[in-house]
């Protein structure tokens, strides 16, 4: 029985399993074959779980249907930033090469309890720092739509794997846009939930007050379903709340009466003309569906990047201090005494972008600078939150393009870190405010995907997926990346 992997989604896999049209083993095998056929070109996977996945699938197939949970047997892949007990977890860093966590992240535990089958761990920018997955210590990931181009980052492996149908759906993480931007560049759906909706226990921390786990999927329904599986208040995460009510699969078909605010500050010169065109067309579609589209201004978001590149590196510099070669991970052979062991381990183990951010973070927190940088950044954050709150009084959604450009070429931006940072302008303020946001494929420019970015108020995930689903049904983008499977 063969299945066109491009036709499969998480929800579709579940339907096939429930109806008996496919077994878990068949599904897993289909994806393993697909991975073998294309991942040599795409490079989305750092580690594949072949044996364990097939074993788990066999065990599920052996269970009588009545005893199987609704999602049992559906394959999934996860960004290599989530702790998987006994299975190597590297954050795409040399400093964690060979590290096997002694515990499962809560999100992973929930996947396991629901019976999903983890196909493998996906590539990313090292410690989630980057917008192109070029900062992975092990391999770049290539955009399935054009293998000379980046998939975006830091969840580039997750986005590419879903786009190339190497997995029906995936978990990624988002700190400044790391789910949404790669989703936009790879033409898939990417959802960052409200801060606290999904437990961060077991999510290897980059910036604690900004990080969230979220789904990258082929459909909006899948994003809702996967969020529903992993969300929830967790006693092991003091900052977690879960959603306010369980999320339902969206059914909306129109946007009558819904008000959309176009964030003026995100439609400036930095936006590619091709991207702008797709975005404008999307706005017209919203109106066709009955939505109202107006321009709004949130002046403080222009300071978002500056605030983010103070807060995130500051928190990261502290979060990454635990990588010292003492209890786990890489330890340098150089280092006769403690101090040189520390410095050599960290200098050899971390890549250049990670070191840059640790340096920025250490600098802004160091004596005398705290108020000028970190203090000001946290106050800027307040202003950004106030701007969003004020605007949400009059609008249901705030929209913009997800990324100023389509996927750029590998190597194109690596020489200029600041230029790389500036491309996060539309996604970053959302993390500072803790709001939920989605990137939805909206069209193409130069043959490459363009994403539409939509933001809702806190805990507005239902409204978000409802509207995104309605648009998705209307857009009807059927295109697929032209990947040829390699047969060995």
């Amino acid at each position, binding site marked *: 029985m063969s299945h066109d992997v491009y036709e499969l989604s998480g929800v579709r896999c579940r339907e096939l399993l429930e109806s008996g049209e496919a077994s878990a083993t068949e599904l897993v095998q289909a994806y393993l074959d697909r991975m073998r056929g294309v991942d040599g070109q795409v490079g989305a996977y750092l580690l594949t779980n072949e044996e364990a996945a097939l074993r788990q699938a066999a065990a599920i197939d052996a269970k009588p249907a009545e005893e199987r949970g609704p999602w049992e047997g559906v394959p999934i892949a996860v960004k290599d930033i989530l702790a998987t007990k006994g299975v190597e977890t590297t954050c795409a860093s040399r400093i964690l090469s060979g590290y096997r966590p*002694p515990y499962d992240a809560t999100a992973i535990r929930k996947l396991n309890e629901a019976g999903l089958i983890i196909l493998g761990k996906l590539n990313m920018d090292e410690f989630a720092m980057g917008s192109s997955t070029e900062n992975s210590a092990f391999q770049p990931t290539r955009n399935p739509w054009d293998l000379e181009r980046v998939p975006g980052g830091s969840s580039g492996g997750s986005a590419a794997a879903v786009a190339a149908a190497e997995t029906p759906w995936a978990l990624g993480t988002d700190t400044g846009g790391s789910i949404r931007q790669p989703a936009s560049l790879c033409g898939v759906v990417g959802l960052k939930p409200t801060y606290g909706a999904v437990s961060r226990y077991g999510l290897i921390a980059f910036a604690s007050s900004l990080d969230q786990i979220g789904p990258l999927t082929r459909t909006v329904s899948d994003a809702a379903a996967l969020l529903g599986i992993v969300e929830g208040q967790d006693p092991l995460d003091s900052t977690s709340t879960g959603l306010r009510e369980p999320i339902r699969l969206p059914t909306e078909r129109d946007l009558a009466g819904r008000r959309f605010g176009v964030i003026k500050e995100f439609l400036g010169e930095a936006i590619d003309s091709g991207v702008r065109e797709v975005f404008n067309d999307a706005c017209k579609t919203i109106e066709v569906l009955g939505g109202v589209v107006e321009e709004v201004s949130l002046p403080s978001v222009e300071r978002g990047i500056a605030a983010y590149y103070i807060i995130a590196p500051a928190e990261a510099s502290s979060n990454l201090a635990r990588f010292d070669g003492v209890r786990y991970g890489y330890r340098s052979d150089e280092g006769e005494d403690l101090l040189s062991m520390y410095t050599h381990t960290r200098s050899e183990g971390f890549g250049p972008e990670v070191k840059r951010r640790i340096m920025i973070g250490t600098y802004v927190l160091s004596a005398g600078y705290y108020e000028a940088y970190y203090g000001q950044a946290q106050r800027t954050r307040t202003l950004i939150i106030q701007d969003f709150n004020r605007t949400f009084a009059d609008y249901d959604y705030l929209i913009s393009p997800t990324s100023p450009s389509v996927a750029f070429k590998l190597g194109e931006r690596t020489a200029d870190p600041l230029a790389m940072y500036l491309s996060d302008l539309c996604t970053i303020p959302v993390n500072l405010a803790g709001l939920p946001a989605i990137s939805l494929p909206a069209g193409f420019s130069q043959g490459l995907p363009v994403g539409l970015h939509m933001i809702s108020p806190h805990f507005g995930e239902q409204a978000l997926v409802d509207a995104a689903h309605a648009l998705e049904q209307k857009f009807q983008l059927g295109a697929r990346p032209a990947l040829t499977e390699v047969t060995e």
Partner: protein
Amino acid sequence: MSGGHGANGEYEAVIGLEIHVQLKTNTKMFCSCAVTFGEEPNTRVCPICLGHPGSLPVTNERAVEYATRIALALDCGIAHHTIFHRKNYFYPDLPKGYQISQYDLPLGVGGHLDVELEDGSTHRVGITRVHMEEDAGKLVHAGGATGRIHGADYSLVDFNRGGTPLVEIVTEPDIRSSEQARFFLNHLKNLIEHLGVSDVNMEEGSLRCDANVSVRRPGEPLGTKTELKNMNSFRFLARGLEAEIERQLSDLEAGEPVRQATVHFDPSTGSISVLRSKEEAHDYRYFPEPDLVPIVLDEAFIEKRRAELPELPAARKERLMEQYALSAYDAGVLAGNRSLGDYFERVAAEGDAKLAANWVMGDFSAYLNAQGLTVEESPVAPEDLAELLRLIADGTISGKLAKDVFATMAESGQKPGQIVEERGLGQISDKGALEAIVAGIVDANPSAAAEYRSGNKKVMGFFVGQVMKETKGRANPQLANSLLRKALEA
């Protein structure tokens, strides 16, 4: 005005203490690992207290309650809004590369502890702040000759202790001598023992004390201070402080300025070693802990903790004086040690309080000290001691004999009544029996009898002794005395 130190007594010592108290909770500050001691290394750990990537802290509710009790007992103002901060530095016993502690919004500020000194005067020591934090792991240094840090080949780390809840108490620089420091620390230890929140045992490490020391001429601005660290007993603390004060004074008197430094006291040599502080002082890069949320303490919470406070030593002393008609001295001793005071009250509940006080402070304490036991380890239950005292009060045995009985009680675990009966120790108060014995002794000692009759009343002592010898100590002394007098003066 002189400060009492230095060649001409013109300097005063200015001392502030930084005390760490380990809380007696079941679990660690930010994870549910058990707080235990003496276990095999790295067997009371989890991903959180080992600092594994992805792990997150969750605050122990009871630790916050205990810490609040300490802050209240020290009369601090309790913060209505208190948060944790990260204190960032690298050390092998610090698994996350930062310690979760408190910085500019601590739990308690602005308290004091009134300390009664030897001469009866009271000295108030201000408490700057009380805050919560987590303990580090334990580092042992292996290889090398001395086992000390420098010169060791490598170090071994055990994280069992890592994450244990700590309360840090910082005093104002109100202490003026090593004696005051010792009295303060004793008072503080006693106070916290009464709260039941910590073992506060310096030798075991549940009470740790560092000191900031400087000297100056009274009225002048504060001198440069040094930090005296790692003193693990009250005696070493006192000697260490004295040695450091001396060292600073001899520097000053030789025209040398005091340099900021960390110093260690070596009790075996009695000398101070100065650790040249590294070029830069630690830059801890404090920032609010993003993995934890603020703690909001309303009046209701604070009042509940206040109501939970047990009777504190000062109040207990007053009550003991009033309730049991004890002297200030006796009440002070019994209020000075929570378990001793508890023991005393259980004994006194059933009889003569004064007798109970004498015995608890006297023979009972002496026995415990000789055997190296704590009150909790006492082989004699308070009810049994009370029974013994009853036997004295009702004349069954003499006070002197009771001491023997007590010793037997401690060794054998037998009840006093049992022992008295088995050994036939009941006091002989039978007039007839004693009369016969008295008569026999008077007859057997004619010259002594004659001496007594001729006016040397002191000889009575000899006769009483003889009666006691004859009766193996069981004669009722008062009765023996009066019968002897009757017989001799007859």
